């Protein structure tokens, strides 16, 4: 992949889009890449993308807006098509739920939602309970070096099982927090709410090492 033509977008229907934009732009600038992030709301915008970030937010809202006919704009099919053609995807929290193969809810057992089904992982939504149980904790992530990564978990899901092709980046007795499968990257926490750019750097690396 040539550095000069790289284009990364963020699915900008709902959630913390700006936080991802600021961080990814900083990473691009730091690597000397002259490219700005695109806010993606329409299918045709996906055509030029090498990578798509699906931000944190409410996964039910995003899944309705990308896949349901009454909201008119069928982004889901287009995202799936672009991933088949090699577009990289980075999902955080709600984004991780959206790219998973299957999701359940911790409280509401008969809950179901439309997913993009890109990554061979299963998640449980709201695994830790409600907002008052949201938390921060440092995570050890070998792939990113010795310095612990500041984990910010907000009404976070957890990854319960992964397929054979999925590389686990962070896990402990509590569950799986970060995974990578080919050109897909997912975290159940929010790197974009911290000052640590290592996950965004990893995502850029995944795009560049094509």
């Amino acid at each position: 992949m040539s550095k000069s033509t790289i284009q990364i977008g963020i699915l900008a229907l709902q959630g913390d889009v700006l936080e991802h934009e600021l961080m990814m732009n900083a990473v691009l600038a730091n690597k000397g890449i002259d490219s700005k992030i695109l806010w993606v709301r329409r299918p045709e915008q996906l055509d030029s993308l090498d990578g798509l970030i699906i931000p944190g937010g409410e996964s039910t809202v995003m899944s309705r807006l990308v896949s349901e006919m009454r909201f008119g704009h069928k982004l889901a099919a287009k995202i799936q098509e672009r991933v088949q053609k090699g577009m990289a995807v980075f999902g955080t929290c709600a984004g991780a739920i959206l790219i998973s193969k299957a999701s359940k809810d911790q409280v509401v057992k008969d809950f179901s939602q439309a997913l993009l089904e890109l990554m061979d992982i299963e998640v449980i939504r709201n695994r830790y309970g409600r907002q008052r149980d949201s938390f921060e904790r440092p995570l050890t992530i070998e792939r990113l070096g010795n310095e612990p990564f500041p984990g910010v978990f907000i009404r976070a899901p957890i990854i319960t099982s992964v397929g054979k092709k999925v590389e686990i980046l962070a896990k402990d007795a509590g569950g799986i927090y970060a995974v990578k499968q080919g050109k897909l990257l997912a975290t159940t926490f929010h790197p974009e709410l911290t000052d640590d750019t290592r996950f965004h750097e990893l995502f850029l690396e995944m795009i560049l090492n094509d």
Partner: protein
Amino acid sequence: MKEMFPERAYMKKGEIKQIDKDAFERIRGTNRVKRGFARMTKGGVIMDVTSVEQAHIAEDAGAVAVMVLDKLPIDVRRAGGVARPASIPIIKEILDTVTIPVMAKCRIGHTYEAKVLQETGADCIDESEVLTPADEWRHIWKWDFVTPFVCGALDLGSALRRIEEGAAMIRTKGEPGTGNVAEAIRHIRLVNDGIREIKAHYKANDTQQLMAKAREMKVSYEIVVETAALGRLPVVNFAAGGISTPADAAEMMLLGCDGIFVGSGIFKSEDPLQRASAIVLATAYWDSPEVVYEAQEMVNEQKAMLGLTGPEMKFSMQERGADS
């Protein structure tokens, strides 16, 4: 690194931390987690509901959260008397049946009511002028809570006062239950104009004038500088109070709001699911007039909430609360 993301610096200030003594060393109730929660609702619509049925409709329509209250604002006006929070069993039932965040309103200055709502597990507490204020002098000291708070504001000063009391999220007050978006527009314009003014002083390095503004607004010099440097409020800022149509929602987004609260507008209309979905669509696609047009096409003006004006309104909610 810190200079790279100045809008994240505040997250370390004045926070309450609760460290769980399990093996995972989780820290709850930090600013990052409370204000981060609000950030996750950006671009979404938070809908007022009074029952489980309404909460289901809201979730189905794509609401980013629901706000539980005993009566919709228009009914609060009609009923008169003292307006208090929703019944606990209703809040609990809604918490158990929807997967999106559940917020609940408490009275301005009623610290214990907020503590009770925190116990229910509500994801966010709205210290709201829609209910009858309980303390005429003070708002709740919101730093003491693990649960994030949202508060109403009608200009920059009131927004910054609430943030300095610990609010993790701000919304315009508007004039709830009227179906009239004019007051919400007035309030966001006052916030924006206020920010523009201090930003100009900041750019001109006019420390004395920034100090004068801090005194005028009865807030700290630090938060004035922080806001001026950011060029926006340091927390998420939603629109509320009188939004009833998809175009109303898009207008508020155009004016720089991060998202939308809809109160009586949805469940006092005759087409709630349709209208709620249309407002969600218009909020997500606010900068595409052709999509807002589609959203506006989904609703029928004849089925819209009639709303209240003039003497029918009985009283103004936006003026309620200490130091409003």
